[in-house]
């Protein structure tokens, strides 16, 4: 097979998209108006595919913090923290996050992807074992692969299947890391984390890693995520997450009580060899974290909006993701129907994510909506109306 032959399948998918007049993986927003609105090709759209769960991207405090940081500390760090040194704000954000999670230490990464890549590839090595939920994000698979450890997949959200696979490992348990997510990115379903933590407890020596990318600021009384919601934070050895969703910026983190986290930082090639985040990003993230803690009503508004949209779409009889969540996916057996649905929604002023296999868990194609606390109830109704109108026009059949 020649070098470029492997891209032919992708080329065929792109051709099919182009023939359908779809530019879903190449959307350029002419102007972003707010956390929930943008202009694309001169058309005003409601954004329902952003992961901007708390709607903080245009928060005045976050913007001001970022602007102040740019003026006082410049536009970028121009290198990694290991080589160029840390700015004070990097260390301050790590302390803020450690306080927020009630953990001994935190490492901040430049993206959420790098957080998973760095932590998982460094924590384990040849001879170790990852037991991961089958629906885990690509960054988890990639981090596991880079580690050189053995990778075993358990059936999605099936604690009994996890138990079976841990049992099979016998004496290798102390070299085993279980990896799950709080809320899964494609269908918005939650991990049965209380059950998973109970299984983990029955195998002393095993480690538990939870990626809270989609659950930070979304679940838990304090917004710490699924582990807080399930009351099992003490069972979680490493919490990994991102700043690019609820915190409205970009970056990632890992929080842990293990004192070895300080060593992991300097053995962590994706951390050591990536330029650190700009001070403006760190500053807006710190401001957003404060808001996340101080304004729980945002979480309530997010859930009100999520229930409102889920109920509306459910009432239309659409094939939906399994539970109300800030991620609501409409599922299609045929990708052409998803193409048509995506285009129809754009024509009706609504932007959602079009997600195709193999990025989807079960081979279906998805119109994936993500809801925000920044959406007004009227905007939620407009999104619901767009689906209803499209359905009436036969665009979702």
């Amino acid at each position, binding site marked *: 097979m020649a070098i470029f032959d492997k891209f032919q399948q992708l080329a065929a998918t792109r051709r099919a998209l182009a023939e359908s007049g779809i530019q879903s993986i190449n959307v350029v927003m002419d102007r972003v108006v707010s956390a929930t609105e943008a202009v694309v090709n001169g058309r005003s759209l409601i954004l329902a595919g952003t992961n901007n769960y708390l709607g903080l991207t245009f928060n005045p405090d976050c913007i001001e913090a970022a602007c102040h940081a740019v003026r006082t500390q410049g536009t970028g760090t121009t290198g990694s923290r290991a080589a160029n040194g840390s700015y004070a704000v990097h260390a301050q954000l790590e302390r803020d996050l450690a306080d927020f999670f009630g953990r001994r230490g935190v490492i901040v990464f430049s993206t959420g992807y790098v957080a998973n890549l760095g932590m998982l590839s460094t924590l384990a090595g040849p001879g170790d074992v990852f037991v991961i939920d089958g629906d885990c994000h690509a960054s988890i698979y990639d981090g596991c692969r880079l580690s050189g450890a053995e*990778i075993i997949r358990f059936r999605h959200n099936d604690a009994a299947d996890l138990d079976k696979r841990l049992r099979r490992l016998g004496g290798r348990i102390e070299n085993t890391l279980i990896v799950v997510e709080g809320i899964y990115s494609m269908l918005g379903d939650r991990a049965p984390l209380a059950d998973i933590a109970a299984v983990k407890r029955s195998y002393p020596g095993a480690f538990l890693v939870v990626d809270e990318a989609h659950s930070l600021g979304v679940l838990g009384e304090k917004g710490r995520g699924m582990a807080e919601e399930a009351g099992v934070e003490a069972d979680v050895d490493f919490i990994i997450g991102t700043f690019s969703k609820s915190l409205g910026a970009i970056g990632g983190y890992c929080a842990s009580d293990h004192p070895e986290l300080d060593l992991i930082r300097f053995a962590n090639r994706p951390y050591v060899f990536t330029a650190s985040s700009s001070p403006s990003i760190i500053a807006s993230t710190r401001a957003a974290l404060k808001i996340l803690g101080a304004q729980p009503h945002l979480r309530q508004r997010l859930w009100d909006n999520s229930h409102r949209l889920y109920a509306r779409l459910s009432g239309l009889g659409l094939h939906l993701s399994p539970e109300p969540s800030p991620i609501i996916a409409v599922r299609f057996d045929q990708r052409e129907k998803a193409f048509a649905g995506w285009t129809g929604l754009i024509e009706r002023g609504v932007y959602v994510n079009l997600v195709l296999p193999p990025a989807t868990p079960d081979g279906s194609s998805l119109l994936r909506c993500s809801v925000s606390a920044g959406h007004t109830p009227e905007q939620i109704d407009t999104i619901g109306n767009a689906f209803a109108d499209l359905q009436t026009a036969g665009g979702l059949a």
Partner: protein
Amino acid sequence: MHTYDSILQLVIELVKPLAPEGREVRENTDLVADLEFDSLKVMNLIEQVEDRFDVSVPLNILPDIRTVRDFSVQLQRIIGDN
């Protein structure tokens, strides 16, 4: 004790329902080139084999598997390891 031949027969039996209608499944059949297996079908096959033999198949072996034979050889090794 599972022999290579008994494992091969079982793998062929499990692959057949996942293959496009009318395609033959033999020892040297290429799962992707001949049967158009995608990642979903590969995972489906692995889960069935895991249940049948009460083993976990590491994903790390996937790059080494092209044919029914490759999969059967790896499976025999994993069952032996266990």
